[in-house]
């Protein structure tokens, strides 16, 4: 199992800040596609962090990871 975190408008669309799911061995890209379909999300502009570090599309997810979808940031 992994935890997936959503923020900002993604969180509002999903209706949840965190979902737990099976994703061991998936790439970031595959997870994105799966969640895009499941929640009708536009993740094209979202960055992904695995365990609080930005990850590339081909990064592999393993059990226990915390994956966060990070829409374009607007702090400051």
């Amino acid at each position, binding site marked *: 199992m992994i935890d997936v975190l959503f923020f900002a408008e993604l969180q509002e669309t999903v209706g949840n800040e965190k979902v737990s799911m099976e994703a061991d061995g998936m790439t970031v890209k595959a997870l994105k596609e799966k969640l895009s379909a499941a929640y009708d999300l536009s993740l094209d502009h979202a960055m992904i962090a695995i365990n609080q570090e930005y990850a590339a599309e081909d990064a592999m997810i393993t059990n226990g990871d915390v994956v966060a979808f990070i829409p374009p940031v*607007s*702090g400051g």
Partner: protein
Amino acid sequence: MGKNYWITDKPIQVNDCIAKVIRPKAGAIDTFIGTVREFTKGKRTLYLEYQAYAEMAEKKLAQIGDEINEKWQDTETAIVHRIGRLEISDIAVVIAVSTPHRNDAFEASRYAIERIKEIVPIWKKEHWEDGTKWIGDQKEKTSYQEKLPTEEEMSDD
């Protein structure tokens, strides 16, 4: 005094941030303060809501401090960002950078605010008179359209 990079849901005391970077080797401190502006291009903001991925945001703020220390000599940086509901004129972010000489302080704190808008997972929701919206990329000077950060931005070194 605790850490130099933090997210808070309480009003920010500017001095808390400045106090962390005052030191005998420094002769200059540049402090950037971001406040909630009422009007943007004629549109009136009622209040803002900030959300953060707090643990990661604090790590990324610290990364910016590390980057500054690599780019300029002998710097000390502290950054605090507030989350939750902020009213007009409330302080959203404070960046303080101390350096031996002033030019470095100006450049470094300017660098910090640009980097915050690139890599730190914090989001702003505008509450206007006529609606709300989560704001995306707000960089004023450079475009940042790629969906992945650059290698440099992903690095935590």
